[in-house]
C-alpha cells in the first residue's frame, strides 16, 4: 500500500500530462495547469529539504567534534547569517544582496576558474595520442581550440575568392562530425528517456521511491 498507492496516484497524474499534450479540453487544461503549479511548490520543498539535510550533516559533525569540525561551524555560521539577512533585510538589496555580490559570487566564479588550471594540467599529463582514435580526438580538439580563437582566422590561405582557414576547418568539424555525434547521442538519449519515463508511469521502474515497503 505504501508503494502501490503513490504509484497509482503518479500514474493518474502522468496520464493527464501525457494526454494533454495531444488534446486540449478545458477541464484537462485546468488540471494540467494545476499540476504544473503544484509541481513547482513540491520541487521548492524538495530543495528546502536538501538544505535541511546539509544543516543536519554539519550539525552532527559539530556535535560529535569530528575532525575539522571548525569548518562545519564556519559553514553553518555563513548559512545562518545569510538567512537572517534575507529574512530581516529582504531579498532585494541590503546585506542579503551584498553577500551574494561580494562573498558568494566571487568565490563561486573563482572555484570554477580553478578548473582552467586543472584542465590544462590534466591535458598535459594524460592527453596522449596512443591509439588512432585518441589521435583523432586530439587533432579535433586542437583544431577546434585554435580555430575558435583569432589564430584560426590568421592560419589559412586563399584560393581565388575562397578562404581556407583553420577557423573554417573547425567550423566544418562542428557542423558535420560533431553534429553527427551529438545527434546520434541525442536520438539515443531521447529514446532511452522516453522508455524510462514510460516505465516510471507504468510502475515498472520504482527505484526513485526509495527502499523499503
Amino acid at each position, binding site marked *: 500500500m505504501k508503494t502501490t498507492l503513490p504509484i497509482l496516484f503518479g500514474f493518474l497524474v502522468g496520464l493527464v500530462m501525457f494526454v494533454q499534450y495531444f488534446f486540449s479540453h478545458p477541464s484537462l487544461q485546468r488540471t494540467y495547469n494545476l499540476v504544473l503549479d503544484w509541481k513547482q511548490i513540491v*520541487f521548492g520543498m524538495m530543495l528546502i529539504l536538501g538544505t535541511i539535510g546539509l544543516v543536519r550533516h554539519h550539525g552532527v559533525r559539530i556535535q560529535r567534534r569530528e575532525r575539522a569540525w571548525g569548518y562545519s561551524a564556519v559553514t553553518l555560521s555563513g548559512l545562518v547569517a545569510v538567512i537572517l539577512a534575507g529574512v530581516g533585510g529582504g531579498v532585494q538589496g541590503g546585506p542579503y544582496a551584498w553577500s551574494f555580490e561580494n562573498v558568494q559570487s566571487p568565490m563561486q566564479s573563482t572555484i570554477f576558474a580553478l578548473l582552467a588550471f586543472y584542465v590544462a594540467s590534466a591535458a598535459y599529463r594524460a592527453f596522449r595520442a596512443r591509439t588512432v582514435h585518441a589521435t583523432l580526438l586530439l587533432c579535433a580538439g586542437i583544431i577546434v581550440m585554435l580555430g*575558435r*580563437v583569432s589564430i584560426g582566422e590568421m592560419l589559412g590561405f586563399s584560393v581565388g575568392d575562397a578562404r581556407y582557414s583553420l577557423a573554417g576547418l573547425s567550423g566544418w568539424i562542428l557542423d558535420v562530425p*560533431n553534429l553527427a555525434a551529438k545527434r546520434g547521442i541525442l536520438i539515443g538519449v531521447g529514446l532511452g528517456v522516453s522508455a524510462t519515463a514510460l516505465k516510471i508511469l507504468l510502475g515498472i521502474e520504482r527505484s526513485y521511491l526509495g527502499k523499503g515497503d
Partner: protein
Amino acid sequence: MPRPWWEHALRLDRRLLFVAVALAVAIPVLFPLGLPVVPGKESRDFFAALEQLQPGDVILFSFDYEADSRAEMDPMTRVVWRYCLGRGVRIIALTNYAGGPGVAEPYIELATKQLGQVYGEDVVFLGYNPDYSGTILRLGESFRATFPADQYGRSTADFPLLQRANRYADTKLIVTIAASSLAEYWTIWAHGKYDAKVIAGATAIQAVHLYPYYQTGQVSGFLGGLKGAAELERLAELPGDATRGMDSQTTGHAVIVLFILLGNVAYFAQRRRKS
C-alpha cells in the same frame, strides 16, 4: 647520468604549468592585443533575430545562469539588453536558477536607472521559480499564473506589460542565456509545444550540444561561449569585456596546445627510448 629532457618534461611540476597559464591569460587582460573577431553564422543568426525586432515588441528573457558562469554569460546579456532596450523593445525577464536574481539585478538597474525604462511598462522581472520544466511549460499558458508576483513581491496582474503579453504567443522571441542544458529545454518545450521562436546564448561547454537543434531550425541562432559573446559585441557594435577577453582566450589556448604537444613529444620520445 643526466636525465633525458623528456623525463624532465614528463615530471614537470604542475605549478609551473599553472604559472604559464596564468601569465598567458593575465598579460593580455592588462595589455590588449586587439586581435580580430569574425562572427560565425550561428552568431549572425542570433543577431538577425534581434535585428528583426521592432519598437514596442515584447521579448521573454531568461537569466539561466548564476555566479559561476558570469564571465561567459554577462557579456551576452549586456549586449542583448542594451541593444533591445535601445531600440524600444520591451523585456519580460525571469530566471530558472536560484542564484539568478542576484545576477539579474544589475540589468534591472541598468534598464530603470540608466536607460530610463519604466518598470512594469517597459521591463518586468518575474524572478525565480523552482522546477524549470514546469515553469517553461506553464509560461506557455500564462505568465501571470506562473508568476503571481514578480521578484519584488508585487502582483503581476497590475503590470501593463503583462496585460499586453501573457503567453509565448504574445511575444516575438524567447532569449535564453543558459549555463546548463536549459537552452535545450526551452527548445524542447517552448518551441516544441508552443512553436515559440528561441535563440540561445550558451556556455562553450553547452554550445557544442546545440548544433543538432540549430541545424533543424528548432533554435534560430545561438552564441557559443566568450567567442560568441565577442561576435555579438562586434555585430551590435557594443564592444566590451568579451572582445577584450578574446585576446587572453587566444594566448591561453596557444599555451595549452603547446603543452599538450610537448607532453606528446616527450611521451613518444620516452616510448622510443624504452623500445
